[in-house]
């Protein structure tokens, strides 16, 4: 139990704490500092106070967590194929397991996955828990949750990592709630606090405006979903030291109310936006919907996908599928070309971790130029045709 307190005698009324609070959770009333209900206990004000008038009180809690050992990663499979994020988890998991001096295990659910489990033996881990049943062939919330919770209660891992994919973000909170343990979503950084044996989870919040460091000191297992394409992938080529342990699942159809009826593939885009290496994105500066053809042309030339800002999607110039940003998709291509996009924070949040950002906008004050690797202050209607022409020529030669 942690509580934040103001030591009134030490408080000088200097108001340094006010400006340090990112959540506007501090108010000065009658020259006294008051901490509001939305205080997050992040401790920024404690650091900021020159008189040490703010303290965090911690109740001593004794919880025996020593029986929880080992780092697990969830091996995500879809249609019998292992998803790329798994290898990123393997890389990260290995580091964490080493820091803890513990084993790294993979947990794989499915049907007829033995072959894939054996492929994983090429990676640096100690165990692979293989749980097979026809009912587990495709991901279903209740069934997967039950299997994993049973296994966790049995084997007591210290840490469980999953990919922050649509599957992971559906499964992890269900598991964490059933286990009544802490879960941190969409982590971009993970490390071990060796003193306390806590997993320090770093993740973006407030749309990426701030980063938060989070721990679950009194609960196990510590769960985290990891943002895909951020961590380094593990490399295969290790001596096969891992063992595959088959577990009998206790599942029945009655457990799962939700049935999968069908899958719809809408192949409107040749290139999936989130998987694209190059994205050409258009905003209000395009002027009118017809000008998206310019985006399409450039994207096709570069072998990329077409993205869009929220404004033009809302105006009906292009389908919502293409929207990049806080309420759209988050993308991390090698190259992001923003055309006529002012680059408001909500858009930036969806694309600013792209490797290279090229911005074309006739407004030199456009915020996009603050994050662009290459900024071009030009009218896109003049610039793009020249770029397209030269790329076409280059393609021919």
């Amino acid at each position: 139990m942690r509580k934040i307190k103001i030591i009134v005698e030490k408080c000088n009324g200097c108001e340094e704490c006010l400006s340090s609070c990112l959540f506007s959770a501090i108010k000065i009333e009658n020259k006294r500092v008051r901490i509001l209900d939305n205080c997050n206990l992040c401790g920024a004000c404690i650091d900021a106070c020159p008189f040490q008038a703010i303290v965090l009180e911690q109740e001593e809690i004794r919880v025996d967590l020593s029986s929880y050992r080992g780092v697990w990663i969830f091996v995500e499979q879809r249609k019998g194929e292992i998803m790329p994020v798994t290898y990123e988890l393997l890389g990260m998991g290995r580091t964490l397991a080493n820091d803890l001096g513990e084993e790294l295990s993979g947990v794989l659910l499915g049907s007829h996955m033995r072959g894939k489990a054996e492929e994983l033996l090429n990676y640096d881990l100690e165990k692979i828990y293989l749980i097979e049943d026809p009912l587990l062939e495709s991901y279903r919330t209740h069934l997967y949750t039950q299997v994993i919770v049973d296994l966790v209660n049995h084997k007591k891992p210290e840490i469980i990592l999953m990919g922050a994919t649509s599957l992971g973000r559906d499964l992890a909170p269900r598991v964490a709630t059933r286990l009544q343990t802490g879960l941190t979503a969409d982590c971009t950084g993970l490390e071990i606090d060796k003193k306390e044996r806590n997993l320090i989870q770093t993740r973006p919040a407030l749309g990426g405006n701030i980063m938060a460091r989070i721990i679950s000191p009194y609960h196990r297992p510590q769960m985290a979903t990891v943002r895909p394409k951020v961590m380094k992938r593990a490399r295969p080529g290790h001596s096969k030291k891992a063992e595959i342990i088959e577990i009998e699942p206790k599942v029945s159809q009655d457990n799962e109310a939700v049935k999968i009826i069908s899958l719809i593939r809408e192949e409107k885009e040749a290139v999936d936006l989130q998987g694209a290496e190059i994205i050409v994105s258009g905003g209000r500066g395009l002027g009118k919907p017809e000008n998206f053809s310019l985006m399409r042309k450039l994207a096709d030339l570069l072998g990329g996908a077409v993205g869009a800002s929220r404004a033009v999607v809302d105006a009906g110039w292009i389908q919502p599928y293409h929207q990049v940003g806080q309420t759209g998709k988050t993308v991390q291509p090698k190259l992001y070309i923003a055309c006529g996009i002012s680059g408001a924070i909500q858009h930036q949040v969806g694309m600013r971790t792209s490797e290279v950002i090229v911005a074309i906008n006739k407004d030199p004050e456009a915020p996009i130029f603050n994050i662009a690797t290459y900024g071009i202050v030009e009218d896109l209607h003049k610039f793009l045709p020249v770029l397209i022409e030269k790329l076409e020529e280059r393609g021919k030669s």
Partner: protein
Amino acid sequence: MDFSLSDDQKMILELVEEVSQAEFALRADEISKKGEFPGENIKKLVELDLFGVTIPKEYDGLGMDYLTWTLVSEKISKACATTGLIFGANLLCTYPLLVFGTEDQKRKFLPPLARGEALGAFALTEPEAGSDAGNVQTIAKKGEDHYTLNGSKIFITNGEVAHTYIVITTMDRSLGPRGLTAFILEKGTSGFSFGQHFEKMGLSALPNVELIFHDCRVPKENLLSKEKRGFRVAMQTFAAGRIGVGIGALGVAEAAFEEAKKYSKQRVQFGRSISSFQAIQHTLADMATEIEAAKYLLYRAAWLLDQGKPFEKIASMGKLYASEVAMKVTTKAVQILGGYGYTKDYPVERYMREAKLFEIIEGTSEIQRGVIANKILKE
């Protein structure tokens, strides 16, 4: 004098601003270029209950004041003059119904107008009757339980899309203004059809068509006010309408001013942004001052109308001034944007073309000056 907005007004205007900027402003260019009636925008106005602002609650309206209506109209017009005018023209139908209608007429016609299910229009202008309103030629002949209309109207805003029309006819051409008679006419009435529609200098998406009456039978219950009292209906409707048209002009002026201001800060010549040159600064200062003055004339006219006080003079002044300010401001805006301002890449040339109409409709500037002179000389 308390110039502050009430909480309700602030709440409403925040919503109208949000919708206007998120939707109407984005589509304005496109609908103008295509000459397409802004159906989506009108739908939004209906969903927001905006057509019911000045209609009393007992007729399904919101029972609010004309000042609030004016403030709402300003925001709409700033985002899209066409939508603002369609919205404003509706008032020319609801206002005379409220002032001159019988209880039965109000109960029949106002609720659909308040709910936006029907759109309104006002039809006086004819090929031979513009400023000379008394020269209306459309004749209404009295029958047993009906009147028969023959004639035509031109340049009627909302013509063809509107459902409910206030039509000014004459029962005796020799009487001039004293023969005028007003009727409520519904679309679909036999003998009532639509004719040509003109390609305009601007506001191409604004519906302005010819109305044709050929032995059109109007039930006698649809007589508005009394026979040969139509001139009064027209004049009073125009007085209120002037506020609407004035605020429409103000909206265009404000939009043009924002563009000019923004551009002047961005545009660099001679090594500095042009907003640092005195010539531009003085021009912007003049534009801002004129806009501010026009605003308060119009707000005051609406306030007077709400108070039940005589408002016609101030309304006329407001319309005259705002429309001339709009013309000046939009012209200066094009000037500030220079060569680019003259192209269709920027909206200011459109604003300038749009502004011109406001000096003409709802009583030309010449007529307004006459009205004002008339009033002030009597005082």
